[in-house]
Structures are given as C-alpha cells and as structure tokens.
C-alpha cells in the first residue's frame, strides 16, 4: 500500500496538513508565470481554513497541488506537502507522481474535493449512486449491495429528499443545489480527513448557498474532518472559516483567525478588499472605496512587495525594492513592511 509510513515526526500532533513553500510555474510563450510563488499554510485536524483572493491569485492551483492534480503544462517548481492522519499514518504528498498508485490511495479516500460546478465534476453518463458506489467499493472494499446501501445513507446524510430513488438519478435530473449535495456525498463517501472545497457555493443562489454552508458545517462537526474552503466571497468565509489566508498574485499576504482578518487586518490588501464590499445594512456612501489600478499581469510582477503599486501605504525605496518578510503577531501573519503600524491602530470593520 505505498510508502505511507515514512517516519518524519516534526509535524505536531494536531496538524493534519502542512503546505511548505509550494511553487507552481507555467512556462508560456510570453514568459514564465509563477502562479504559486512560495505558498505555505497548515491545516489543523478538524478546522476550516478559508482561502480568499481574487481570480488568478493562485488559490485553486495551490489546492490542486495538494491533490497532485496540476494541469499537465504546469511545472512543479518545488515545495513540500505533508499530511498526517489521526491514525498516525503520514504521507509526503509532494513526492508522489500525478498518477502514482500512492496518490490514488489518498485521493478520494483521505482527501475529498468539491468544485464550483458539479455538472462538470460529476460524470453525466453514470447515476450519482453508481459514482458513489464505485468510490466506496474501491477504497473501502465494500460489496455491491453494501456500497449501494452506503450510497443511500450518504445521500440521506447530505439531506437529499427521497435518497432511495435519487440514488438512481443522473446529474442532469437534479437541480444545482441537489447536484452540489450529490458531489458532497461523493466527496465524503470514505470519511476523508480533509475536504477541499473550491468555490462550492459560487454558482448557487443565496438561499441554496445558505443550505449548503449549513450542511458543510454540520458534516464537518459530525465527521471531524478539516476543510480547506476556497472562495472569493468574504461573507462566505466569515461564516464558515476558523482561520483565513488571503492570497494575492501567487502569495499569501496575510493569515489569521477569522476574527482578526475581519476586525484587525494587518495587510493593506486585506483592508482594501474588505472596504470595497458593499455590506447589507451599512451605508458606505455613494461611492465604494476601491483599490486603484488592477492586478498586474503575471509576466511582470512588480519588484519588492507585489502589491506596492496599488497600496496607499507604500513607502518609496522600501516597498518597491525589498520583498516584505513574514511578520508575526501571535497567530497572525502579515507580509507587509509596515504591518507593525497596523498592530498599534486596530482597524475596526
């Protein structure tokens, strides 16, 4: 069963996943795109880590590199991903090949994944029941009958109405919200220790989104699994995450507990993003505060701090020259030269 018990015990016992300095590059005709440029984060057992950032910030690619599911033209340019289960099993995911037997033992079994658009993630020519059955037969060695039983149980668990009938339904026969439930059932079918949720509610209506978020929270506490929740929606992340990492141009610029991110952000990018969202019941005046300019194209990332040309606090001679170090304030990390300044004057949201 692969090389699962390589003993490396510098992971503390509450840790589930360690992502260390992961780099993913795309060699394109126009130049080298460093889509993920040294990303590090960790996920503790049973916690929800939210990852927010605008499109192109590298949040999905980092998650895919955990699963070793990078696009074929991507260049794995270094970094280490390790996972450690409650049972003590330890996997060094970054050493596994894209299609290796070892990674296939982990994918679907210890790590489940759900995507934004269930219609493209589920097979259109198989019933949802048979897709779940195949997974549990493979990973849990169940018989056909037992697998079908388990599929029905799982559909009931994700609160599908009439699971005994819908187990034989094809994805196109279900509504968007029901398809997302079916995909969640598939992802949790083998009781994974980690669920990677990549914008799972973005395509859904708010009332359906609220149902799915409620379901994920419930499953998370019931099954004790950890979730990496990727989204661009600050409302959603505030609702579900315990800790949050904010990404900009392939890097994490800030990581903190959800309360610190929203009530005491220490990176100007986080602060500016939070200001630019229209909030219900809050009169922000006629104009929304915006971030000047736009995300630079990935071939010409500015020197120094990548955010400096758009930052209202940028200091000439420092921010445009020197890359900011990771500054730590307790559990909070900010990659900003002047983060100390924000530590003194807490920004109230």
């Amino acid at each position: 069963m692969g090389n699962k018990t390589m003993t490396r015990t510098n992971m503390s016992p509450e840790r589930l996943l360690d992502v260390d300095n992961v780099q993913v590059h795309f060699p394109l005709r126009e130049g080298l795109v460093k889509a993920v440029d040294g990303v590090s984060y960790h996920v503790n057992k049973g916690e929800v880590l939210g990852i927010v950032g605008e499109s192109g910030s590298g949040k999905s690619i980092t998650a895919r590199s955990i699963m070793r599911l990078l696009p074929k033209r991507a260049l794995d340019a270094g970094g280490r991903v390790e996972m450690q289960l409650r049972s003590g099993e330890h996997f060094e995911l970054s050493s596994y090949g894209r299609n290796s037997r070892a990674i296939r033992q982990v994918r679907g079994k210890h790590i489940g994944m759900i995507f934004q658009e269930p219609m493209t993630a589920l097979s259109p020519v198989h019933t949802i029941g048979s897709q779940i059955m195949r997974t549990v037969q493979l990973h849990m060695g169940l018989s056909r009958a037992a697998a079908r039983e388990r599929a029905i149980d799982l559909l009931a668990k994700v609160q599908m109405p009439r699971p005994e009938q819908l187990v034989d339904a094809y994805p196109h026969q279900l509504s968007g919200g029901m398809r997302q439930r079916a995909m969640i059932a598939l992802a949790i079918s083998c009781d994974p220790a980690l669920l990677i949720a990549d914008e799972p509610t973005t395509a859904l209506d708010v009332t359906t989104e609220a149902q799915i978020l409620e379901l994920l929270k419930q499953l998370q506490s019931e099954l004790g699994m950890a979730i990496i929740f990727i989204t661009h929606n600050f409302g959603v992340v505030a609702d579900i995450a315990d800790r949050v990492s904010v990404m900009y141009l392939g890097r994490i610029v800030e990581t903190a507990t959800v309360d610190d991110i929203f009530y005491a952000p220490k990176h100007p990018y986080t602060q500016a993003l939070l200001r630019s969202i229209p909030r219900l019941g809050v009169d922000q005046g006629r104009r929304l505060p915006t971030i000047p300019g736009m995300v630079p194209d990935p071939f010409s990332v500015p020197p120094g701090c990548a955010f400096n040309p758009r930052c209202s606090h940028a200091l000439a001679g420092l921010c445009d020259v020197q890359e900011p170090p990771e500054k730590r304030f307790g559990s909070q990390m900010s990659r900003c030269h002047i983060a100390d300044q924000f530590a003194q004057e807490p920004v109230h949201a």
Partner: protein
Amino acid sequence: MPEAATSHAMPQVGEMPEDVLISVRRLKKYFPIQAGWMKKTVGHIKAIDDVSLDIRKGETFGLVGESGSGKSTVARLMLRAYDLTDGQILFRRGNGEVIDLSDLTDRQMRTMRREMQMIFQDPYSSLNPRMTLLQLVGEPMLIHGVGSQGEIRDRVAELLQVVGLRPEYINRYPHAFSGGQRQRIGIARALALNPSFIAADEAVSALDVSVAAQNINLMQDLQEKFGLTYLFITHDLGMVEHISDRVGVMYLGRLMETAPTDQLFAKPLHPYTEALMAAVPQPDPRGNRTRKRVPLKGEIANAANPPKGCTFHPRCPYAQPVCGTDEPALRAVAGGRQVRCHFAEELTLTGVTT
C-alpha cells in the same frame, strides 16, 4: 388562466406620471411547453406573470431574486428582445412622447432601441472576439446610420475615454482585455447612441470584488453625467442595496414586493424578502455567530407547475391555510410600497440591522 385581479393604483393606459420614464403594466410572458412530434402545446411556463412596476427618470431600480425568478426575462421584455404574451410597456421618449412598446413592430422598435440599451453579465460571450473596439462600440452607430466613418471613430475614442479605457486601444480586440475592462467596453457600446434607459443584467456579478467596485462607481458616475435611468438586475443583495433607489423582489415570475431601498432593508414586508436577506452571509464573523439564520427550506418551485395559492407558501414559515388556496394580489401599502402577501400588515419581519 388569468389570476385574481391585481389592485394597483396606477393610471389609465397611455397615462404616466411626469417623473416616470418606463412603466411596465401587468406584464406576462408564457413560454409554451411542447410535446410529441406535432409539437403540440401541452402547457405553459409562466416565466413572468403579472409584473407591474414604474421606473422614474434618473433613478436606479434594482431587481433581485433567485435564478429562475424571471428577473432577466423582465428586462428582455422591456427591450422587446422577447415578444410579450400580455401587458403594456410604456416608455417616455426624449421628446416627451409616451409610447406603448408592446404594440410596436420590429422596425418601429429598432428606432426605440436608440434610447434603451442593455449591458450583459458575461463580458466574454457578449463581445464578438473578431471585432475591434472600434467595430464593437461603433456598431450601434453604424446600424442606426449615425455619423460618418470619421465621426464614428471620434465618438468611439471619446466613449472609451468616458468609461476609463485609453482611446489608443481602439484597434485592439476584446481578448487583450481583462473581465472588468471588457465590461467597460460593453458599457461604452451601450452608451454609443445616448440612451436614456439602460438595463444592466448582472453587470458586475462575474467580476472580482475590487473590479466590481470600480465598475459600480463608473456606472454611478455615468448616471450622474448623462442622467441615465438604470434597471439593475442582480442576485447580490449587498450590491443592490448600495446602488438602487428602489428595489423589486421577484419570485417565480412574480413581483413579491417593491419598496424604496432603505425601507425594504430596514423592514421587509414579504416573508421571501426576509428569507433572502437572512440567507446572505455577512463579512462579519461575530455577527454571523449571533444572528439567527434558519435557511429557507426546499427549492424554487417548477414554473410549469407552480403551487396553488401563493407561489411561495410551500417554503414560507408563516404560511396559513388561506395561502395554499388564494393567490394574494400585488397591492399598494403605505410608504409607496407594494407587496404580494395576505399577511403583510400582521407580520413583523426582520430586515438587516447593524
């Protein structure tokens, strides 16, 4: 097929209060359901059933609702991209003349479209990739025979500047631009003929937050500068609260409630509006923890077979027996509001408070 009479204090056909730019009255759009090789019509999907609303000059009217509620269909009907089944669309032209668009032929409608334009959600599929900005933004002028080649070029350059793009980009193709910039190209194109009314269908929904904020500010600047009237369609309640003067809430092809924005959010009168507001996760973790959020049960009903009585009653936490039998009418209530609920006066619903 007709529903219970809708009592609304609206003037007679052809009459419209001075300050109203466009008025939709008892709008209906039924799509036939066809079956068999004869394509026999076996039923109808009531995509829009009895929608009435007024949009005043210079205001932004927000239309919210879930997918399938018919909000985009309303906009398309107002611009006559679809033919309506029944109802009236009164539009006040630049010269003060009030015209019922529902009677117009396609040819007559074409001249009207100079004054009414649309901005679409997806800036990737709504711009022809084989056309340059000059062709894209200049196309409406070409079609309407406005201006010579040189004049069109000058006007396009000016429009690009107006929406915050560099006029030097005039010969570039859409693929060279980001999503936010493409949306600006769509806005420039909509502005080309100096319209008075623009329907923006999820115009910022596909954009990242910081880009959406920039484009929303641009749309507000343009509104001020050119005296535009907007119909702003979105599912984002935060955005609609920010940009709209008045809001209409749609559910299953019907307007459930209309109200001035601050009143709607402070005190919703329809249970669906309350449920919609409660469902939005706020960027406020502490507030989310204390706020009671009971997710709405079930899903939007099938429009081909809507529930009897109030279309919302199967999901409504306040439903009474009468809701399952009698469809409530959209009726005017105090404060210039309209609501479609039997119990609007009795219920005390929660809005958004901070």
